[in-house]
């Protein structure tokens, strides 16, 4: 991972990375060492590796909700563009909303996934600072949602299933975003996605930030990766409202019940896509492979369902969302 600041990781992961770097340093020493010194370094390395294993188990084996939020935002975590590069053949990007501009915060295009022609879309966060600025850190404007809708309608016309990768802190809260109808754009996407006559798989790969996520996030299957979250409000925003202190985000992350397990229990998400131990960024290849398997399984299932039945199931799933009681009036 050249060019990446390896210590730019969440607090809880830092001791692990430090230990890993130490072991790497020792290995470099080992390459030039001979005799007794070599044997002593070898012993040290094996001791340190045992420590590392223990440390990783204690840290990654006990992730609390806030840790998972931090992993979902991890600077080295695979992004939609990585999944497209690895999993999608012959990707043909389709830009622009034909009304105002192209919003880089959402990427759309034709793609071939395991021999199936599909429409791919997702929130684009960017890796380098330049990219991040271009993509507005994954916060889309109305034109981004309108672009996505336009491409989804094209997919419907061509009978292409849609795969949507969710990863946004939220739709952009800005003056121009309001002027151009942020709420209108999101509302129309949500409404139209509820009725698009092609299979739609949504996979939350990082942050499922509120309405901005849902704007390309309605479908037939709701998948979420093990270290992703989905929430009505950011933990920081929630903490600011509850306790007037954004630093209490870890407490807010707990009360919001935003982890994949919670989301399944609450009847929103359908399935969790596993990640390599410690998070997708620690072994991206393994992460891509998991995503490939799960997407393929769900895509095959959905493509076998007649469209009327698909529409019926999608509506029923949405109608069943929510928890309340019915008492005597």
């Amino acid at each position, binding site marked *: 991972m050249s060019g990446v600041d390896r210590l730019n990781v969440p607090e809880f992961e830092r001791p692990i990375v430090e230990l890993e770097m130490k072991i790497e340093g020792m290995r470099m020493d080992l390459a030039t060492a001979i005799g007794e010194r070599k044997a002593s370094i070898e012993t040290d390395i094996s001791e340190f590796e045992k420590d590392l294993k223990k440390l990783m188990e204690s840290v990654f084996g006990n992730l609390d909700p806030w840790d998972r939020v931090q992993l979902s935002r991890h600077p080295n975590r695979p992004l939609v563009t990585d999944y497209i590069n690895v999993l999608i053949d012959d990707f043909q990007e389709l830009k622009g909303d034909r009304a105002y501009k192209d919003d880089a915060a959402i990427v759309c295009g034709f793609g071939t996934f395991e021999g199936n022609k599909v429409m791919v879309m997702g929130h684009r966060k960017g890796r380098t600072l330049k990219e991040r600025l271009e993509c507005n850190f994954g916060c889309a404007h109305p034109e981004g949602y309108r672009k996505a809708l336009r491409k989804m309608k094209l997919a419907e016309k061509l009978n292409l299933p849609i795969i949507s990768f969710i990863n946004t802190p939220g*739709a*952009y*809260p*800005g*003056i121009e*975003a*309001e*002027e*151009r*109808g*942020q*709420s*209108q754009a*999101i*509302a*129309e996407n*949500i*409404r*139209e996605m*509820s*009725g698009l006559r092609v299979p739609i798989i949504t996979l939350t790969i990082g942050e499922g930030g*509120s*309405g901005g996520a*849902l*704007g390309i996030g*309605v479908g037939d299957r709701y998948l979420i990766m093990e270290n992703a979250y*989905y*929430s*009505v*409000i950011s933990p920081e*925003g*929630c903490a600011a*409202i*509850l*306790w007037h202190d954004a630093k209490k985000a870890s407490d807010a992350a707990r*009360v*919001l*019940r*935003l982890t994949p397990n*919670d*989301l399944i229990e*609450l009847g*929103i998400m359908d399935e969790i896509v596993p990640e390599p131990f410690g998070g997708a960024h620690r072994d991206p290849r393994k992460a891509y492979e998991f995503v490939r398997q799960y997407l393929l399984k769900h895509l095959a299932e959905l493509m076998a369902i007649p469209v009327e039945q698909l529409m019926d199931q*999608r*509506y029923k799933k*949405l*109608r069943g*969302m*929510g*928890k*309340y*009681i*019915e*008492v*005597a*009036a």
Partner: protein
Amino acid sequence: MRWALSRKRGAPDGLWMKCPSCEAMVYRKVVEEGLHTCPECQFHFRISAAERVDHLLDADSFEPLFEELESIDPLGFKGKKSYKEKLKKAQEATGHREAALFGTGKIAGKQVVFGIIDPNFIMGSMGSVVGEKIARGAEHAYDHKLPLIIVSGSGGGARMEEGILSLFQMAKTSAAIKRLQDAGGIYIAVLTNATMGGSMASWAALGDITIAEPQALLGFAGPRVISQTVRQELPPGFQTSEFLVEHGFLDQICHRKELRQRLVSMLRYTCADMPVAEKPQQKRHTAKIAKTNKVQAGT
């Protein structure tokens, strides 16, 4: 509990009152005659759901629906106050079980499905019950081929205390509205102060016709969040009804005093079984002169 429209309202009594917007001292009776609007600056005061029903529906025509729905605390949510306490307090203050009131009623004799999202109940925020009532309201309109009218005062957007369940009410309500609209059904959205966030970014924005009361705060992100994000002061009038109509997101702004009549007109154009408007006597004579002046400027 026998259902009854609660008339609870927080306003203290007195002959004179201060307008919270322009701060003018105004005669309470005049405010009330203006359906709780300021005679000086036209600020629209917050009113109860019962008053809204009185203003808009034919007398005694309202028949409530889905009153059996009650919120639970699905997350076990605890901030400074627990969600359960918050709900109880809102129920006591308004006399209603939830922020959404739905039913059937008549407007100039035309049967409609009528819903109110009451800003007096946890800022009219949308949890599972509010979402369910909107969806059932749309389905009732679909089943009985009736127009749907929702008057929203949902400044709270998606209700934080129900977490992800609130968020996905956006999808549930929008799907039900789409089904109604795809079948030729009509949905008229009336937006009042305030309608924001998850509500504005779903059902509230999806009307075939959208009308707002003047000076209502309508938008996606809250003004404070925006000014903190962009680190600049927001332009005057930002996210008001007037701002939205200027940017093309509303059909009309309508003063509360004219709202009922405006709905009657809209129902005439959207419902085949409504009679056409009668031609007023005086217009017959002035029709030729008034031709160039037909489209009203402003509101």
